[in-house]
């Protein structure tokens, strides 16, 4: 039996909006970085550093990483509830799904913290 306990917002609408909104953020971020890269007359590591040195860009990037994590979590949650269940895997289905979800959650959180360190950390 698949339940909703592990979904992000426990509301289908909330999850759906999160996925659409986060997708828009990611699209905007990719567009912004691409423009930064293409518009520069000369592009190398210093220019790349400079692009991310500005505080607005750092805020934007952190929001983008957050969006990526939320987007990924909703997607992963959906895929695991589609395929990792008792109908496909027998009685162990729920346990396998829960373990997979915990692993994915930890990985997502790690990525989030790592991303925050890159943009805001000492580096």
């Amino acid at each position, binding site marked *: 039996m698949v339940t*909703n306990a592990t979904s992000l917002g426990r*509301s*289908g*609408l*909330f999850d*759906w909006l999160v996925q659409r909104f986060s997708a828009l953020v990611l699209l905007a971020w990719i567009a912004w970085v691409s423009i930064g890269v293409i518009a520069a007359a000369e592009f190398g590591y210093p220019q790349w550093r400079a692009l991310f040195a500005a505080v607005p860009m750092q805020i934007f990037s952190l929001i983008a990483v957050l969006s990526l994590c939320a987007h990924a979590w909703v997607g992963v949650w*959906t895929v695991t509830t589609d395929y990792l*269940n008792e109908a*496909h895997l027998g009685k162990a289905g729920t346990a396998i799904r829960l373990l997979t979800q915990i692993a994915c959650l930890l990985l997502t959180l790690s990525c989030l913290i790592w991303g925050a360190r890159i943009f805001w950390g000492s580096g």
Partner: protein
Amino acid sequence: MSQISISIYRYNPEQDSKPRMQSLEVEVSGDRDLMVLDVLELAKAKDPSITYRRSCREGVCGSDGMNINGVNGLACITPLSKAAGPARKLVLRPLPGLPVIRDLVVDLSQFYEQFEKIKPWLINDEPPPAIERLQSPEEREKLDGLYECILCACCTTSCPSFWWNPDKFIGPAGLLQSYRFLADSRDEATAERLAELDDPFSVFRCRGIMNCVSVCPKGLNPTRAIGKIRNMLVEQGT
């Protein structure tokens, strides 16, 4: 007269440990383009143990939904020429994704349960007037493309989201009916109906695959109805 080869999915739980495909040759007269159901009736006259549901034989009762050469459809309105193609070979299987009771007959309980979940009846607690409730032709037009559903289950059983979560995802047929009541100017339970749909499965498991649209024998568009429900949820929920 000409020959048609049919391959029919056979399974009788009292005799068979697992399903098998049975091959049959049926003589058909050449003067009229028969429907798949006509061919099945000819086959059943030869072998009465072949089992399927049928009633109106004109595409309005929804009994004989089955998988015909890989595509869900109603046997009674699918012409042999279209289904079998130039190879003149017919492959008949039960609707996918539901337990098989016998041969081409599937257990539709889950399908009906999902239909009942959406409260498929008009809710209006105001005392009714002495005559009919008035409804403008424009308001009535919103029900076109919705009320015509015949509950044949062709759409829902072609939907991978329903295959994966048949207990939770309402499925295209149920959602089409849900929107039929949401769109009815006479229905007053819009908020309650929407509240009951706002979980991660009932509506939102629709991933826009659109198998439902491509197989609907009545030419209805459940995906569009689901989109409209989602828009109503967005309007109400934000």
